[in-house]
């Protein structure tokens, strides 16, 4: 599998486009950076274009902008209540970034930003630091009650607290790993099945017929990947909302 065309991992390679070195740190502009900027540019364009006309009966772009806003706003309001709406900018940015980056990854020859764990981990840490810092800011030490469930016998409180802390720490990990693993695995699967098609067609007439099966599979998987792209963005958003809810209401 040395051939670049059929190597399923090759698509995730990072290449330097502009070599930048500041004070010994490598901060080069890579293909990953390029696609992050493209993602942001696409979001900004669609939303600015969508909100420019402000028609009562929305056009296509305005409809997209309004639908995405309403969708995230409803998710946040349901999960974290009306007071959670102060986090709307954060949650909406996260949703739009993850969704657009995932969908961008489905375009052939495009780089999938969210298939790198460093990107998803940064997003997850942003969420969990927001939750922790805001939780302490709003509730003070009362926030620590989160780790000590009520109605537990004193004898096993240390044990339960330890388990609760591990459970809390596992949140950013599961948030980051889920998104990254889904995108990585999905794209590798697509590439592997597409590779089968190429390899089988080189076997002559019989192989040509055999290649039909993985070809059908690739078509089906592409549809599935679009679903996963949206679903992962949605799951990331709803979990963010639920964690923010913990920061807002850790108990009274």
């Amino acid at each position, binding site marked *: 599998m040395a051939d670049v065309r059929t190597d399923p991992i090759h698509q995730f390679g990072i290449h330097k486009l502009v070599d930048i070195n500041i004070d010994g740190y490598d901060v080069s502009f890579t293909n990953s950076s390029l696609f992050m900027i493209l993602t942001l540019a696409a979001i900004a364009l669609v939303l600015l274009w969508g909100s420019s006309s402000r028609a009562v009966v929305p056009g296509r772009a305005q409809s997209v902008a309004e639908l995405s806003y309403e*969708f995230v706003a*409803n*998710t946040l*309001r*349901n*999960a974290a*209540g009306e007071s959670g709406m102060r986090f709307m900018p954060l949650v909406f940015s996260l949703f739009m970034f993850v969704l657009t980056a995932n969908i961008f990854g489905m375009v052939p020859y495009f780089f999938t930003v969210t298939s790198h764990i460093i990107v998803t981990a940064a997003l997850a840490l942003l969420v969990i630091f927001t939750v922790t810092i805001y939780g302490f800011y709003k509730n003070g030490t009362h926030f620590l*009650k*989160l780790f000590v*469930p*009520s*109605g537990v016998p004193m004898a096993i409180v240390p*044990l339960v607290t*330890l*388990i*609760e802390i*591990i*459970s809390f*720490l*596992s*949140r950013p*990990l*599961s948030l980051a*790993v*889920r998104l990254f*693993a*889904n995108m990585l695995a999905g794209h590798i699967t697509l590439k592997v099945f597409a590779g089968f098609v190429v390899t089988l067609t080189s076997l002559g007439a019989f192989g040509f017929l055999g290649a039909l099966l993985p070809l059908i599979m690739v078509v089906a998987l592409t549809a599935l990947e679009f*679903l996963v792209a*949206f*679903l*992962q963005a*949605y*799951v990331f958003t*709803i*979990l963010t909302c*639920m964690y923010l*809810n*913990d920061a807002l*209401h*850790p*108990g*009274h």
Partner: protein
Amino acid sequence: MGQDDERPDDVGSDPRLRALGEKLAEARRTPSEQGGNGSQSSGLAGIGQAMKVGSEFVAGVIVGFVIGYTIDRLFGTTPWGMIVFLLLGFAAGTLNVMRTTGKAKDPFSALSGNVPGRNKDGED
């Protein structure tokens, strides 16, 4: 919005209009009161939950592993830190899963009483 501002002379006479008014009120109430995100995402929430459950369990075990490994490296207590924290991580992972599926009570909802939509994902 709702049944309050219906004009009684029009609506009262026609049972179909009244039924429509009730349906409208119901539809307006649904997203916020039932805690779901409307009908179009109820299937999505199910798949999303399926994806959540697996990763949350694994995440708990991995965090336990990392803590145990770090403690062993810092204090030279190999292999006890790993053993204890792997078990605790397993417990935390199980707790995560039970919480996700709504089998175990969330400490937050237990403390704060009625947080709107708190266990929404557990219902579907």
